[in-house]
């Protein structure tokens, strides 16, 4: 199949309709088209062939249980990329036995006069000077996996897949103002988790 007809099929409504209707041929086409990219994401996060294969299976289970949430005005590839990244991050979190962190505990606190409570010493050096690229990616992936699901989805779509606020809102079925608020809080929480790692809690 050439690249152009691939694209037609990826975004084709018939494929999504088929998946929603439980059509086995549509499911097979979906798996054959999307498993390679899902495997690429999973290998990058998990660095282990068996774990990556498990995450890809989880991604398809998750996709089929939430295909009814897929919005026709979004791209199936964008939607499935988020599902597959989430599946890989969940596998990573369970492998490392990490818990989901509370966003409230990770956003800054302020004194009555408006100053921030206990600013930490600055990140003395940029993370790329302290950690090798692969260690840095692994640390940040671990922290993203510890965000609550709602926050993680917004970070995946807005900051990682670089979707617009409007598109993110459509895909998640929430308002644009909810996307903005969740994203800002999630970034602050992620920043605090990275800071704990670099500077100490």
């Amino acid at each position: 199949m050439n690249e152009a007809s691939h694209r037609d099929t990826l975004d084709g409504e018939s494929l999504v309709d088929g998946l929603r209707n439980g059509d086995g041929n549509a499911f097979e086409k979906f798996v054959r088209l999307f498993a390679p990219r899902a495997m690429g994401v999973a290998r990058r996060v998990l660095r282990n062939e068996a774990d990556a294969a498990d995450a890809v299976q989880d991604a398809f289970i998750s996709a089929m249980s939430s295909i009814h949430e897929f919005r026709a005005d979004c791209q199936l590839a964008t939607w499935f990329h988020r599902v597959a990244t989430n599946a890989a991050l969940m596998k990573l979190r369970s492998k490392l036995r990490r818990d989901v962190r509370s966003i409230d505990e990770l956003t800054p606190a302020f004194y009555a006069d408006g100053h921030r409570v206990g600013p930490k010493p600055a990140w003395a050096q940029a993370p790329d000077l302290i950690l090798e690229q692969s260690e840095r990616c692994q640390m940040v992936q671990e922290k993203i996996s510890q965000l609550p699901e709602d926050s993680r989805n917004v970070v995946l779509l807005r900051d990682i897949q670089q979707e617009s606020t409007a598109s993110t809102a459509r895909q998640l079925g929430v308002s644009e103002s909810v996307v903005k608020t969740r994203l800002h809080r999630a970034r602050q929480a992620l920043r605090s988790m990275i800071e704990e790692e670099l500077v100490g809690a």
Partner: protein
Amino acid sequence: MPDLSCREFIQFLDDYVDDTQPAEVRAEFERHLKACPDCVDYLKTYRDTISLARGACAADPSAPPPDNIPDELIEIILKSRSDGCA
């Protein structure tokens, strides 16, 4: 207008970073930054966080999908659906 507090600076930092503020509000944020090293640091590390997240998880859109997916994995996924799991 009273001076911006650190709380207000951080509360609306996303609008500053995304450059969606009216010019007079942006000017107020920049005045605050000139006077507040803590918020300069917060802004820098907030931006670092966004680029670290992107660097850790973003797919390279120009990279071809891996072609070494085991057939066995595809078969397991297809079978799991026919068994009613997926």
